[in-house]
């Protein structure tokens, strides 16, 4: 049993099946979906509120998705802990500024990778919120 946790990778079919079971558990226990992106929006609102509280208060989006901590926000906090535990226990944790595949294609520049990831993140999250997922 313990050995299983020391493995770097589990069968993707097993992992998928367990995520399916976990999603049923989330439905049963709180009636919610295993979603992430709304929490990014709530967090953006929490950060903005520190600097421009009135703007956040008057924003129609933040009236629908209130910038506050809820089940899904804690889910996202937990995901970071869970991922760290998995990587740490199996020896897969490593501080890496540029992924290997990126480096072989586009070179080792940290700033290039980080700025492209930033631009990608902006576009991706705008699209995700627009699409509604």
């Amino acid at each position, binding site marked *: 049993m313990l050995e299983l946790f020391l493995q770097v990778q589990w069968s993707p079919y097993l*992992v998928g099946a367990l995520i399916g079971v976990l999603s*049923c558990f989330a439905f049963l226990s709180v009636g919610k979906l295993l979603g992430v992106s709304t929490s990014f929006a709530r*967090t953006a609102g929490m950060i903005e509120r520190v600097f421009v509280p009135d703007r956040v208060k008057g924003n129609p989006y933040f009236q629908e998705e209130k910038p506050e901590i809820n089940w899904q926000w804690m889910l996202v906090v937990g995901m970071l802990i869970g991922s760290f535990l998995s990587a740490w226990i199996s020896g897969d944790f*490593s501080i890496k500024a540029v992924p290997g595949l990126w480096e072989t294609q586009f070179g080792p520049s940290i700033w290039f990778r980080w700025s492209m990831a930033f631009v*990608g993140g*902006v576009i*991706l999250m705008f*699209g995700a919120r*627009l699409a509604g*997922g």
Partner: protein
Amino acid sequence: MTPWVKSRNGQLLLGLITGIIFGFLLQKGQVTKYGVIMGTFLFTDLTVVKVMFSAVVVGAIGIHYLKGKGWVEPEIKKPALGRNIVGGIIFGIGFALLGYCPGTGWGAVGQGSLDALFGGVLGMLVGAALFAESYGFLKRNVLNWGKIGTATLPQVMNKSAWPIIGGLTLFVLALFVFIELVGL
């Protein structure tokens, strides 16, 4: 129908525990790795497809079973073709640049991938803020295009959900056999 846990603190704790398991599984599936996710688009590594479709099949069977028992009442997202299609295309462009989706990118931070944090997560927060800023405008435009109601496949086909889930399961199993035969 009614969730087990109603108290706010209980829900928050449950969210944290569910999240720990979710993040653990994503990392154990290695779908928090840039190379694994990009492998999907390069057709060199289909780990993401295996994880995703296994989760869809098991989740569909489980949730419809629980629904039949009357224990859960899944909320159906209100689709709108305009926002789904335009948003999906924009999402895809960003996804190709970033190489992580919101969930796997956040998980990648936990395994030490700094590009997911300083590039990805920062960008995603800015993207979410930009969306919130433009929400009033978008609501008068693209968000209203092509609303098609919440009819589900079983309703449209006037069937129980089970034959459709059966078909989905068979399709996914055939896909998995094909993937394994090809050796991806």
